[in-house]
């Protein structure tokens, strides 16, 4: 319209007209640009004012984080027991901090926080708040409920940071096997240390340990400890074929959630790191060496009528029979004299290399890095070392090492590598290394069974289960002197003895005899009953068949002809 008005007043033609229309078109282009720009601004205003505001309001409703979550390190993997029960996990937990520069009423704030977190160190909190900086920790790893209550206090100077905290729901049940990790997620002991590379990259680990068996073993070991007023104890269930540790206990133990506060005595892993003279258990190996290397029969005899003097040592019998004993009798009566003669017959070099093949002379190769180095007599073994070593005197090994050696001998003769990582069922043997022949393995199994049916391990017998085992009672050597009243009483057992599946060991440190044991603190009285109770628990936990046993076909019956005793020996009812 306005163009028409202009048209009427001024009429320009020719070249000039061209210039005018060009100016006009430029003007309109400019106008369009402005219009578009204002339109965009209007639209963007609408967007910010209405649409975005709506989205932000929606987000608030869903409870968005009011406190920024800092980038935190990757989550450490979880640890499970063999049945999938959680034993170690990393949880994101909030820690409370304060910005002292914007605190208004420090006293009131401390009171408010102390009401929510009862174990708050009030004095420390006050000094943190009065500090002249912009950051101070008030409380680490608070619970979700406490965090909510702090949020309700609503003080702007408070804030949360998140860390992963390692939690161990089973507390002290398997302290030494799981071990612990530090605040930065670095494994410091046990499986946490042994499998640090796997856990560190966020993968889970499933242990071979069965929580239920672990509990049963811990219960029975601590019962034996308190009954006999002992200072420490060890318990173990080992799969004789796969080498899997089903239960591993070292007492005293500690709550993994408070690992920092545990004493050295509690954190010391007696099962794998501690080395002990385990005594007569070595007779299993010296007898196996004799049977393996000299092919003698069970009727072969040794003169145990009087003690042997060799070097500084006088070798004597605990249950002295004072007569000529067969191989079976030496084992059954646990005759030191007989075993010493066996060791002499085998010879120092052969006996040592036999022990070495069983892994008793070197530190164990094991998932847990805390393994003890065995204490052995200096090489070459002279007669006295050889003879005492044949009944386990003068050499110290860890209980786990002892148990794996026993497993290797009784499982048919194939060396076993112990592990705490679960294996696939029917994973088979852990090595191809044969340490003794099938025949020797069978003879040893018969001897171990005989020990329970008529010998020193009677108290480990369980009705219906073919348990076999060997006692070991040793005097403790402290500062180079042996103490008569300070004993290590242990029992190693295997069952079912026809084809051993489980090896069980219990070791009690410094038990004191009581009324029920007629003052005895020896292995047969202290450790054997604990093994019996562990086997009983295993029957119900694992659902083992308990009524398939036929006393008429007991493997130890084969050995009865070699037992010459005034009293007639009868097989115990189990």
């Amino acid at each position: 319209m306005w163009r028409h008005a202009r048209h009427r007043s001024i009429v320009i033609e020719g070249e000039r007209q061209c210039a005018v229309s060009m100016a006009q078109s430029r003007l309109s282009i400019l106008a369009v640009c402005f219009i578009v720009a204002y339109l965009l601004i209007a639209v963007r205003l609408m967007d910010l004012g209405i649409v975005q505001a709506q989205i932000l309001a929606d987000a608030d409703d869903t409870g968005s984080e009011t406190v920024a979550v800092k980038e935190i390190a990757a989550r450490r993997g979880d640890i499970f027991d063999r049945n999938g029960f959680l034993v170690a996990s990393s949880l994101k937990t909030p820690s409370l901090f304060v910005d002292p520069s914007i605190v208004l009423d420090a006293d009131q704030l401390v009171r408010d926080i102390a009401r929510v977190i009862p174990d708050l160190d009030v004095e420390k909190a006050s000094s943190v708040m009065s500090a002249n900086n912009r950051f101070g920790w008030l409380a680490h790893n608070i619970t979700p409920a406490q965090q909510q209550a702090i949020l309700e206090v609503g003080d702007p100077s408070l804030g949360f940071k998140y860390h992963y905290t390692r939690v161990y729901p089973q507390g002290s049940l398997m302290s030494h096997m799981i071990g612990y990790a530090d605040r930065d997620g670095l494994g410091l002991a046990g499986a946490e240390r042994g499998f640090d590379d796997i856990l560190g990259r966020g993968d889970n680990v499933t242990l071979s340990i069965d929580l239920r068996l672990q509990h049963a073993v811990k219960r029975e070991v601590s019962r034996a400890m308190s009954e006999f007023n002992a200072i420490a104890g060890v318990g173990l269930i080992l799969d004789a074929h796969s080498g899997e540790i089903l239960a591993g206990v070292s007492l005293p133990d500690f709550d993994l959630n408070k690992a920092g506060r545990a004493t050295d005595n509690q954190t010391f892993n007696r099962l794998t790191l501690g080395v002990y003279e385990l005594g007569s258990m070595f007779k299993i190996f010296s007898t196996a060496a004799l049977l393996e290397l000299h092919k003698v029969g069970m009727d072969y005899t040794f003169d145990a009528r009087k003690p042997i003097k060799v070097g500084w040592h006088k070798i004597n019998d605990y249950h002295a029979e004072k007569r000529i004993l067969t191989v079976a009798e030496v084992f059954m009566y646990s005759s030191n004299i007989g075993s010493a003669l066996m060791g002499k017959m085998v010879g120092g070099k052969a006996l040592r290399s036999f022990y070495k093949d069983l892994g008793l002379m070197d530190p164990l190769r094991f998932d847990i890095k805390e393994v003890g180095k065995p204490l052995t007599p200096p090489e070459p073994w002279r007669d006295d070392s050889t003879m005492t070593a044949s009944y386990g005197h003068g050499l110290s090994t860890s209980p786990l090492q002892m148990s794996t050696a026993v497993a290797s001998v009784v499982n048919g003769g194939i060396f076993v590598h112990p592990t705490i990582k679960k294996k696939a069922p029917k994973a088979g043997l852990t090595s191809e290394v044969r340490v003794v022949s099938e025949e020797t393995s069978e003879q040893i199994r018969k001897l171990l069974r005989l020990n329970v049916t008529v010998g020193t391990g009677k108290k480990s017998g369980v009705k219906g289960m073919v348990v076999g085992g060997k006692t070991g009672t040793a005097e403790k050597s402290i500062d180079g002197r042996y103490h008569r009243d300070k004993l290590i009483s242990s029992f190693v057992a295997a069952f079912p003895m026809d084809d051993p599946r489980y090896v069980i060991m219990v070791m009690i440190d410094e038990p004191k005899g009581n009324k029920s044991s007629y003052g005895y603190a020896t292995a047969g009285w202290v450790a054997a009953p604990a093994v019996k109770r562990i086997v009983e628990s295993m029957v119900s936990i694992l659902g083992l068949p308990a009524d398939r046993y036929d006393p008429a076909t007991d493997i130890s019956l084969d050995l009865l002809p070699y037992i010459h005793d005034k009293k007639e020996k009868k097989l115990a009812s189990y």
Partner: protein
Amino acid sequence: MKKSLLKYGFVLVLLALSASGLMRVSQSVQKVERDIAATDRAIEREQEKIRVLRAEWAYLNNPARLESLALDAFGLDKVDMSSVVSTPSSIPELTPPAGEAGMLSRSIPIAYGGNNEGSE
């Protein structure tokens, strides 16, 4: 002249249309992105909650705790070897019941602990 004005008007309308279309698309993309982020956060929160609950469940299933609960609430002690039966044929015959309730109360010896009496 008129024609070029029409052309401008048309371009203007097209521009406005495409601008608003673009804005709509970018708005919906932003919204979807926010939704995804929110869902991711929600998933992570839920996973964290699940982890806490799993840890709590594991804690409650501690064998020592279950054992003492079973003993206190139901009088269930360690299994005696004489009561372990592995083949059905070796289970002894039940005596004929005097009455349904009577049999139950006699054959299942349960000692109810304090808290459980209400549920009886």
